[in-house]
């Protein structure tokens, strides 16, 4: 089987559910635009979500057709995105990661402050922090379409674009140009890419 690049996104239940799903969709669409094979889906194991419950969302990117079709969990993520920084205290967010992975955190705090809360940080080769709420306020956005199969609002209109923009520093599988092209929040995606604090470990 070809090498599949796995991305796991951790979001807070209900309040970040839609943005988390949108992040998987824009990441997958942008890689698709770059000619890759992709998969993007929500987790089954963590549902039904309730407000604040940590949830996972997944993306797979590959140069060849992805054969892992009936596995609904990324067992070996190379990139992990944390949509709310307090999740680092509640879970082993690097679960399944091999040495050399990348972590993207939505936080006002510096990479060093976040690393203090990650006991298995030696797995990481890079940490990227971006203050997505600073770059794009979620105020006034509704959570419509939080459960549905059809997106009732534009995809990637909120902080998902900012965080996905920042994640472009973490892997060659995501390119900022394609990401901007597929996101509704184009300014946000660019701002996320530019304002990301990247620390190599």
């Amino acid at each position, binding site marked *: 089987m070809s090498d599949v690049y796995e991305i796991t996104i951790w979001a807070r239940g209900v309040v970040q559910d839609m943005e988390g799903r949108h992040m998987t969709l824009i990441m997958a669409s942008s890689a698709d635009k770059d000619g890759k094979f992709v998969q993007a889906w929500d987790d089954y*194991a963590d549902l039904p979500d309730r407000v604040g419950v940590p949830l996972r969302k997944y993306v797979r990117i590959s140069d060849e057709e992805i054969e892992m079709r009936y596995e609904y969990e990324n067992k070996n993520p190379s990139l992990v995105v944390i949509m709310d920084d307090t999740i680092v*205290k*509640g879970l082993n967010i690097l679960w399944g990661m091999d040495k050399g992975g990348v972590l993207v955190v939505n936080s006002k705090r510096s990479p060093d402050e976040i690393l203090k809360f990650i006991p298995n940080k030696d797995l990481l080769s890079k940490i990227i922090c971006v203050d997505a709420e600073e770059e794009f306020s979620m105020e006034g956005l509704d959570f419509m379409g939080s459960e549905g199969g059809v997106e009732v609002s534009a995809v990637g209109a909120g902080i998902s674009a900012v965080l996905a923009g920042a994640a472009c520093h973490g892997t060659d599988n995501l390119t900022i140009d394609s990401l901007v092209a597929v996101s509704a929040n184009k300014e946000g995606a660019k701002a996320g890419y530019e304002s990301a604090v990247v620390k190599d470990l």
Partner: protein
Amino acid sequence: MSKKYCEKFNIPKHLQVPLGAVLPANKKENKGMITGNWRTVRPVIDHEACTLCLNCFLFCPDATWHLDEKEEKMVWNADYCKGCLICENECPVDCISAVNELEFKGGVVRLEKPF
């Protein structure tokens, strides 16, 4: 509120909260239902201002607050508080405030999986 408690703390009759049933308090914690990792903010109590009215204890959906009768102060349990802030809302003297969870080193509830 128990009669003993009302007498001990001189709770006037009109402030005594009637209970529908008196059940023994939980003695065991259910480690299979940890909700502490839902929390983004935590309720921080100002013990000086707290009047031990027990509102937080009564309203908390996760039975997170209890009264330490010896020390005469409220005790909070980091493993189960989900940060809903109902207690902050219900405290009559506003002595509970919400503080971002990452301001604290402790209270880590690091599970392998969400559930």
